[in-house]
């Protein structure tokens, strides 16, 4: 619900991305006032580095949600892909060249995504059920693939790129920017993107317009799988080693970001910019709490604060939308 029939300032303020950015700015100002170290390049680079994988995956999951489906398997998929990546290219394992390992991981992610898409579109398995099953199964598979050991010894080139990157900015941030660029191209500048919105906005009309909804669905799931693989490749080497718990809760974090970013859960509506802002906002919560120095008691409330915050965001959003609708209705008369 990005656009309301309002004019001028109220229209600008009603835009969700502006709203979230304002919230980010206010929070930053407040925390910065209490601890000036918060407003430093270092901290913010850190926040962007952490947002990067979430952003990359969110670009994919958002496409899925835009078609009116849902994907809750991203976290498990990331764990599996990380394990496979480790097995293929770790120096202590098969030690394949990066030129084989990286495409293989990307291909596997895309393949699993495509499989899910086929299940949902042609197999007519409800997406929640399909990805729920997948989420459960992939976790188990990951543990078996890992064989009870952490995988160490990724190629130094990969680790170096993930930790230091180019010009002091890790490769994940560069890749995330690229993915965001590609996704916004896809959503706003490519026929397929408009068709994704169309398919979610009104499947019946889409069918009448001759769109192949099932193919679009397969594409969005494949895209989500591919991006999950991308996120795995750029983010996991940043961690000390690959362990089976990678990506835990990622799926819910991503969906939360997409929802807080104003994408309609039933499809057809939502802006990429708001979702990206929401990712930054959600990623900010942990460092903000650290810099506020909430103390030992407070630390244990971290998850509560996150949860209540999401709840308030959702409620506030709905109330304001309704208020603005009423207001605009009055204005128009």
């Amino acid at each position, binding site marked *: 619900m990005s656009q309301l*029939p309002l004019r001028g300032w109220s229209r600008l303020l009603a835009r969700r991305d502006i709203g979230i950015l304002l919230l980010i700015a206010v929070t930053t100002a407040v925390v910065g006032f209490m601890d000036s170290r918060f407003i430093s390049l270092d901290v913010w680079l850190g926040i962007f580095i952490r947002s990067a994988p979430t952003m990359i995956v969110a670009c994919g999951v958002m496409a899925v949600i835009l078609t*009116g489906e*849902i994907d809750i398997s991203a976290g498990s998929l990331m764990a599996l892909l990380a394990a496979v990546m480790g097995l293929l290219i770790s120096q202590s394992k098969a030690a394949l060249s990066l030129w084989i390992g990286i495409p293989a991981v990307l291909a596997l992610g895309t393949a699993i995504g495509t499989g899910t898409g086929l*299940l949902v579109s042609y*197999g*007519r*398995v*409800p997406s*929640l*059920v*399909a990805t*729920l*099953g*997948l*989420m*459960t*199964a*992939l*976790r*188990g*598979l990951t*543990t*078996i693939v890992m064989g009870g050991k952490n995988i160490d010894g990724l190629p130094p080139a990969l680790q170096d790129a993930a930790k230091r990157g180019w010009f002091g900015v890790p490769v994940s941030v560069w890749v995330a920017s690229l993915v965001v660029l590609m996704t916004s191209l896809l959503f706003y500048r490519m026929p397929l993107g408009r068709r994704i919105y169309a398919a979610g906005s*009104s*499947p*019946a009309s889409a*069918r009448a317009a001759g769109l192949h909804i099932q193919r679009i669905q397969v594409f969005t799931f494949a895209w989500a799988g591919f991006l999950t693989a991308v996120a795995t490749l750029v983010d996991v080497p940043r961690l000390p080693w690959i362990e089976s718990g990678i990506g835990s809760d990622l799926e*819910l974090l991503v*969906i*939360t970001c997409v*929802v807080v970013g104003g994408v*309609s*859960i*039933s*499809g*057809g509506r939502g802006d990429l910019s708001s979702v990206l802002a929401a990712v930054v906002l959600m990623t900010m919560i942990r460092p903000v709490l650290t810099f506020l120095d909430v103390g030992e*008691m407070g630390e*244990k*409330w*971290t*998850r*509560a*604060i*996150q*949860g*209540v915050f*999401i*709840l308030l*965001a*959702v*409620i506030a959003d*709905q*109330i304001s*939308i*309704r208020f603005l*609708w*009423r207001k*605009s*209705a009055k204005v*128009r008369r």
Partner: protein
Amino acid sequence: MTPAPDSDQSPVNRARFDQQSADQQQNSDSGPFRKSIFHDSGFRWWHEVAVFVLLVLVLMVAQELVPGFLNPRSQLLLSRHVWEMALISLGMMLIIITAGIDLSVGSTMGLCAVAFGVSFEMTSSILLSCLFCVLTGFGCGALNGALISRWRLHPLIVTLATYAAYRGIAEGWSQGHSWSGFGASFSQLSRGRLLGIPYPGLTFFALTVIAAIVLWKTPAGKHLSAMGYNEKAARFSGIRVDLNRFLLFCISGTLSGLAAVFYVARFDTAKADAGEGFELDAITAVVAGGTSIFGGRGNVIGTILGLLLIHETRQFVGRYWGIEELKSIFVGGLLISFVLIYQFLRPSGQRV
């Protein structure tokens, strides 16, 4: 004309209709054959039959490969772990029938367990603690229900938020502390048995019977079904959709509270991590039992069968291979492949 905000609130329904009309179209194109056989007979239990057949198959294979698998007493002993989840599934089933979903049940259990612990510390009365625990569950459910029905928010969004919030509040409130030492008599609540069935199981069956009666013998069942199939039509028929939805979430919350009591009793531990992962297990069981995730269709027999199917599969895999990881692979694979195969074999017009 200004689009009314209310009409914006049910795009999910809209999406579903479109899907259905697409189905309809496909049906009408696939000729009269499939229809005449299945529809006019009015037989609506294909899914239950399918799950039942699959369950029997699993049991037979298990008995063949793991001697003594079907030993009734070991079955009952091992059933212990299933009852709390079963209670939650019951509420989940009712909500999914109305095309909703409740992701917060596990977190509600965590919060209830902490409520139990805190109240036991303050009053050292088991009875009061139980009461407080169930009341907390009711409160959590009521908050979900109020948000969903008052502002017509999507249940997935609300319960996704409360999923995080309730668990977080449980952690913060308890400060990670766990309570135990509630006494042997209290743990009998979960471990004691009547006619070989543990008390939580008896509670579950009693509630199941009530749910079955309500679903089949009172208007409420039909109202819920109508809400799930077509919320708009239900509203137009004067069904109090919002009130019903609110009550359902209250029920779901209360059942979570009850499950938390049994959980605390069984492990003699009240801690914020109670019920972690229950929400997905419950959804899995309910969906495997033939309740349509799009709403409308679903019943208690299917849910019981779904629970049994998941439970027995886990037991079988655990006892035959002895590898924990395989359990989740089997359950996930079973869920997907079963729904997939059923979609192709099912009589037309019946969606999972």
